[in-house]
């Protein structure tokens, strides 16, 4: 499954980000360039501190660029654009005073959608989300995996072309992660969104993506881009994937070591 259209949906051009808190300025990203085609599942992977969350934040309009630009659907990004881009964070960030249903409706509410539309959309999503029966529960009554599903549901409800996910399964145990990954693939194939997925996990990168972008240690640059034109669901024990895994690990390992020594 390859990117069909020739026109890239997301263009990141020569982007640099500096943080000047504290005595010495820190360069999080230096001259990063990347394009993402429509329908891709693009994973960004790299050691801690390599700036992958910053990069995602820039596409989502939450982080300003110091140099270069980010263009989404032909328009430069200056602020969050919930008509085009939805973001899911590692901390689900559910509003504790809202029920599951009300949380999923949130984006639609901000947009000004009518009560009926909101209710209907949210209810329809609950099935695929596996949350039927939990409409009126509060976040504190839900498990970690369920909360993250609600957060993803909230993002899906506003039906954007692009879905950004910043280590969404990072706080979950391994088994839950794998199940959530399978579930996410289902959703992706059904909705045909463009997904940029940030992770630490090699398994996730190989099991889910159509393309893997490896970043260097800070200051972050793009080290390698691996295309994965392989069928789903991925046969993780196949010789191809075992090879890819070794290759990916050797790229990342180098950067991880560098990051560990630097930090």
């Amino acid at each position, binding site marked *: 499954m390859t990117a069909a259209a020739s026109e890239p949906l997301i263009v990141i051009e020569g982007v640099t980000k500096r943080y000047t808190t504290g005595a010495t300025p820190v360069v999080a990203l230096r001259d990063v360039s990347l394009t993402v085609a429509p329908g891709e599942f693009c994973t960004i992977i790299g050691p801690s501190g390599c700036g992958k969350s910053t990069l995602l934040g820039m596409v989502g*309009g939450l982080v300003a660029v110091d140099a270069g630009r980010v263009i989404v659907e032909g328009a430069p990004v200056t602020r969050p654009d919930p008509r085009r881009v939805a973001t899911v964070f590692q901390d689900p960030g559910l509003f*504790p005073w809202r029920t599951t249903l009300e949380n999923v409706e949130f984006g639609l509410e901000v947009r000004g959608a009518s009560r009926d539309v909101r209710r209907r959309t949210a209810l329809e999503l609950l099935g695929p989300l596996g949350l039927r029966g939990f409409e009126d529960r509060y976040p504190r009554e839900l498990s970690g995996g369920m909360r993250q599903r609600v957060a993803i549901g909230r993002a899906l409800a506003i039906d954007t072309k692009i879905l950004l996910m910043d280590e969404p399964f990072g706080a979950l145990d391994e088994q839950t992660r794998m199940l959530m990954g399978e579930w996410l693939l289902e959703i992706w194939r059904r909705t045909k969104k463009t997904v940029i997925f940030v992770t630490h996990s090699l398994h996730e990168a190989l099991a889910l993506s159509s393309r893997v972008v490896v970043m260097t240690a800070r200051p972050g640059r793009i080290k390698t881009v691996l295309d994965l034109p392989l069928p789903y669901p991925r046969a993780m024990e196949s010789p191809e994937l075992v090879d890819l895994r070794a290759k990916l690990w050797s790229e990342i390992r180098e950067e991880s070591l560098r990051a560990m020594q630097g930090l």
Partner: protein
Amino acid sequence: MSEASRARIWLIQALSVAVILCVWELAARRHWVDPLFVPAPSAVARAFGSIGGSAVRALGDTLVKTAIAYGLAVVLGVTGGVVIGSVKPLRDVLNPFIIAVYGMPKILVLPWIVLVLGFGTAPAVVYGAIHGLFPILVLVMGAVRDVDRTLVTVARSYGARPWQLYAKVILPAVVPTVVASMRLGLVFCLLGVLIVEMFAGVRGMGFVMGALANGFQAPELFAATALVSAASIAIVLALDSLSEKLSRWR
């Protein structure tokens, strides 16, 4: 907690109260203590009858003043707390001033307030409001400052505009603290009003209690004290159950 232990606790409480009352009654009757200063519970009970009507009227007077002061304190305290707490430069600059005034015994300015406003209702309402304002202000400020940053970021990523951030994130998030501060504020307002009534009052429970103390009318004073205490506890319990209902999501 099991039924049995709950019953046992109730028993201990009831027994303690009963024992204290009996010993107290005995002490007064046998003149182990001077009944002029420590009246017997039976005398206090009788006194309820004699001052009943006027005490309730005085209590009503006090509560009306408290209600007005409380309204002022809540409106100013909550809006002030939300505004100052959410605007960082404002918060940084004003914080030490607010903490300083909060920690100052406000009774020091009471004589001046009475000089300006005279005796009676006005100083009671103003002073009561000041008394209740600060705890509410400080608590709400703290709650706004402590709103989970992630929630604000999430809302912004969904395109929420500033007024939506307030309406959909900040205000709902601080509701439990606002309610808790309102409960605290009520006790403080009542406290302020009573103090003014004792200091420069012409009516109200504080004035009545002060007069009873000056007249060495111990049974009546104890009865009045019990009445105010009961009223205060009842109001606070009512507010507590209200706040519980509003914080189901916690």
